[in-house]
């Protein structure tokens, strides 16, 4: 009863200014635009160095010289770099036109759209899996420091952080598909197909979360305010889960956010190993077939997704720590 009441107070007190939150989010989203243009510029420039003539790639090596020249003109490849870049951005902004895939000859946007759900599901389940085992086990490990379970968790998490994702995926396939035949080695015809990919990208990531949770909890448990709470007779589990964990969550969330890039990287591997039709495997396909428009568009999309997650992390900060909230949302 008490908890419910205090929770209510906290919620109302914390996000009192709904308008302010919207304002803040809008501001952050606007700030995202230059970053994304920067990302596009960076990738555009890098891919510019890709050896080979795109027109030749599209038409094949045996195509006549005139046809190649004609296509180059048509694609605007003869124009200066800066003009092509601004044209690219202009088309994205005005008509969501990310260009045409050199591999499939479809608009890139159309190639990407059907792949989004797969990647989003994988990333979401991966982060959920990693958080759900990383944080509670990290707390357990810290609270029972130097106990048997702490030692086991420490060893396992330390090793998992050092495991290459593709190798973990291979071991899983070997164990659960080849020998036990419990799970399919690839495809996402049902949710069962997600189990191994999620473990693949969530395992090492969750271990990183476990390790940071453990070390921050160990630090928090030694803080003065924890001693105050014990001195006023608060039960141990409340001290751990309410006082220490809430404070420890800040660095933990930072780690979750910062390593989210790693989970996206991991999902590229997982999609590729388990042949999932996601954006990650599209990037690989694009790179292997030198399909530059597809690569640029996919990377842009992933960067956008990444940035949104980071924004969510920042908002969570304000939700957890009133000091940060006071900094962001000054007027109350």
């Amino acid at each position, binding site marked *: 009863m008490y908890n419910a009441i205090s929770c209510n107070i906290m919620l109302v007190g914390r996000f009192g200014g709904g308008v302010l939150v919207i304002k803040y989010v809008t501001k952050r989203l606007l700030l995202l635009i230059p970053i994304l243009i920067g990302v596009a510029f*960076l990738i555009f420039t890098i891919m510019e160095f890709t050896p080979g003539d795109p027109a030749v790639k599209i038409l094949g090596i045996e195509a006549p010289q005139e046809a190649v020249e004609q296509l180059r003109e048509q694609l605007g490849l003869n124009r200066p770099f800066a003009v092509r870049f601004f044209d690219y951005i202009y088309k994205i902004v005005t008509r969501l036109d990310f260009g045409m895939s050199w591999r499939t000859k479809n608009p890139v946007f159309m190639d990407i759209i059907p792949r989004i759900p797969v990647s989003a599901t994988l990333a979401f389940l991966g982060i959920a899996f990693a958080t759900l085992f990383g944080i509670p086990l990290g707390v357990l490990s810290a609270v029972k420091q130097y106990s048997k379970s702490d030692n086991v968790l420490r060893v396992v998490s330390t090793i998992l952080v*050092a495991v290459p994702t593709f190798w973990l995926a291979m071991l899983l396939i070997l164990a659960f598909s080849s020998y036990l035949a419990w799970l399919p080695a690839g495809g996402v015809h049902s949710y069962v197909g997600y189990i191994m990919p999620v473990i693949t990208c969530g395992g090492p990531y969750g271990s990183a979360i476990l390790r940071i949770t453990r070390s921050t909890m160990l630090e928090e448990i030694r803080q003065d305010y924890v001693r105050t709470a014990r001195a006023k007779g608060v039960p141990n589990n409340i001290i751990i889960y309410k006082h220490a964990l809430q404070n420890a969550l800040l660095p933990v969330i930072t780690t979750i956010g910062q390593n989210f890039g790693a989970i996206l990287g991991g999902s590229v591997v997982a999609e590729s190993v388990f042949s999932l039709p996601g954006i990650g495997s599209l990037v690989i396909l694009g790179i292997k077939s030198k399909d530059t428009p597809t690569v640029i568009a996919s990377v842009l999309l992933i960067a956008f997704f990444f940035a949104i997650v980071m924004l969510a992390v920042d908002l969570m900060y304000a939700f957890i720590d009133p000091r940060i909230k006071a900094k962001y949302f000054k007027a109350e």
Partner: protein
Amino acid sequence: MILQALKNNKNENKKNITDGRRKSMWKEIGKRMIKDKPSLISFIFIVALILVSIFANFLIDVDLVTAQNGAERIQSPSFAHWFGTDLYGRDIFARVVYGSRVSLSIGIITVLISTSIGGLLGAVAAYFGGLLDDIIMRVTDVVLAIPEQLLAMCVVAAMGATPTSVIAALSIAVIPTRTRLVRSTVLGIVDTEYVEAARASGMGNIGIIVKEIMPNTLGPIIVVSTQGIASIMLTASSLSYLGVGIQPPTPEWGAIIFEAREFLRLAPYMCILPGLVIVVTALAFNLMGDGLRDALDPRLKD
């Protein structure tokens, strides 16, 4: 004149004191490292691995790495072939040993490049602030907006799949993280009293950066760099495995597994054993980093 001499004398004294303290500090850290068994073992393993990779040609015949031998294709691990042989009858253990040259150098060189460039940018950004800081940090933001592995993949795709371009690609991807780390560490130091004292005693910008700031940022940088070698090796091997990094027949660890992936069911040892080597090596670098961190800041331990 006398005043000047006095001042010099004083500086001399101060320098000796700080040097002495630094020496004993590193000694202390060394002692703590030796006490910590996992990091000691890791350190020995890493040194041994580096030695093996340097002297690989004295230990194992180069022919074993490249020569194809139809008679000994796909053989399970045995006394003759510790890790078995691959599709072309090459000794996998020999390939892994020679592969350590590629994999280790990628890890170590990338860390050296990214730490020195990133560290310099970070220190400059933090120390001078203003427009320079803004520019450096905005560029950093852009690069960091792309997941490390994806960025590296793109760079390799553009530059060609050679070890050099993999190193360049990973460096580009890692530099911003080091820039940020050093910038925030330096920002914490710039405002401290000892930097103020150095400035008050007439030390120039470069002197302060070299003598006061760099030694004090060294701790976190060493820890992150040690663990960075592990994560870079993992990323590099992932690139090879995805077929967008170093290409077979170069005996890079990830590439060795890439070649063997079709045989996962038929001859699992081909994938598992080289992978185990990657895990153990990455683990050693991570544990050594952990040990260094605890040694640098023993407060965190109990």
